[in-house]
């Protein structure tokens, strides 16, 4: 496809050889994306909510698991009894504990998939809304890569912000519920804190990953738009 070109054919009157001379600096990209998110707050919040809910659910399940493990590890007769009554966990029955875990994982996977589809949908709509804007940018000299980058940055920002909101929501819901059931003083807080830090890291990774994966298809669709689209009168 790449045909060799004679350089003199590419001489524009005053600027010499042309090549990758069109640029969009990163700080400017981020500035554009932040502006775009702010102006289209409604749409952004819908995307954000998908991530917030998914991450809150993830964090809640992870925290629940850590707190139960925490109680089991204390190996106290009263707590073991409470666990069986209030959480349906039979410490002496390893298969039932394992079974419950598998159920949780299955639920988690499903909910992450649902969230992914939701975010893709919301991003695709925001691409459709912006057909003319994207076409115009291309007329002004934007490369496909600029458009892809803008959508990825926007999506990543939404992913990180959504995750940061979702984590405390998921954590607090589970922590308060478990605290009320078992008493806030029952837990062994040193390991609990350590595990929560790990859970937060897991959530951040998964939340950002979800947003970036969800942006891939819409961003590609947007980048492949022809600049002529900008000329169309009707949207």
């Amino acid at each position, binding site marked *: 496809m*790449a045909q060799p*070109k004679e350089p003199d*054919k*590419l*001489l*524009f*009157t005053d*600027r010499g050889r*042309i*090549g*990758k*001379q*069109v*640029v*969009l*600096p990163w700080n*400017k990209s981020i500035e*554009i994306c932040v*502006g*775009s998110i*702010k*102006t*289209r707050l409604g749409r952004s919040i819908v995307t954000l909510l998908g991530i917030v809910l998914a991450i809150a659910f993830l964090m809640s399940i992870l925290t629940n698991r850590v707190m139960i493990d925490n109680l089991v590890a204390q190996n106290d007769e009263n707590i073991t009894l409470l666990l069986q009554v209030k959480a349906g966990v039979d410490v002496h029955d390893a298969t039932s504990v394992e079974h419950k875990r598998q159920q949780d994982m299955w639920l988690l996977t499903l909910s992450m998939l649902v969230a992914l589809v939701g975010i893709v949908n919301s991003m695709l709509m925001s691409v459709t809304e912006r057909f*003319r*804007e994207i*076409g*115009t*940018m*291309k*007329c*002004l*000299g*934007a*490369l*496909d890569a*600029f458009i892809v980058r803008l959508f990825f940055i926007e999506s990543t920002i939404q992913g990180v912000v959504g995750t940061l909101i979702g984590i405390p929501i998921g954590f607090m819901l589970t922590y308060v519920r478990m605290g009320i059931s078992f008493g806030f003083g029952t837990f062994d807080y040193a390991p609990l804190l350590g595990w929560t830090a790990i859970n937060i890291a897991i959530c951040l990774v998964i939340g950002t990953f979800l947003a970036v994966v969800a942006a891939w298809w819409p961003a590609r669709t947007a980048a492949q738009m*022809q*600049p*002529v689209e*900008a*000329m169309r*009168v009707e949207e």
Partner: protein
Amino acid sequence: MAKNNQKTVQSDNQPATQTAAEQINHAIVRSRNVKKIYTMGAETVEALRGVTLEIYQGEYISIMGPSGSGKSTFFNMIGGLDKPSEGQVFIDEVDIAQLDAYELAWLRCRKIGYIFQTFNLIPVMSALENVTLPMVFGGMTSDEARDKGAELLGKVGLGTRLQHRPFELSGGQQQRVAIARSLANDPAIILADEPTGNLDLKTGTEIIEILKKMNKEMGVTIITATHDHKMLAASDRVIWIRDGQVERIERREDLQIQVGTIGGEAE
């Protein structure tokens, strides 16, 4: 009437040393036997059936023609937005069919300014940001771009509305921002697609006056596709396209309508 307007086509291989007269008549856009064929299912539609013409630096050109005449197709082609099925389009002596994606983007960024019927400002950006965007693409630093953007907006009479967003501006004001944006990188050509199509008579006249002013003061070539007869008075030449071919080319002097009888409301 039309015949004496068509300039004799100069030889394609111009000598390295041009005379002053030839430089004045430097063809900024040349099309040679341009055809465009669309295939829709089993049917093929010939939107352009061999268009050959030259547009010279500093001219103000209007392309007129009924819808479906191939006017828009031709217009997109000289704007580097579409490639011909046959024939060649040269913009500033560069065959656009030979350009890759980067070079096309560069061409759009630095050589051509676009003005649209629907203004097409980026809604999330202020007037100034809209004007500076092409400069950012062109590699200008933020400070330089801000100064130049403010200067351009001043030129189109919006010096006090730099921070307004498009929805806070009237149609005419938005189109002025678009004109300022099209001039961002000192292009050789401004392509205006029905620039007055969404504007009322008075505002449309103002826009035409600004375009004419830019044409005279900055020497930028202006090519408009239009239905607006107000535009004729401002044009150096009018190219009529019908059924995918150039029907006739008229110079302003030969137009029936006298300059001044149109757009009287602006006075």
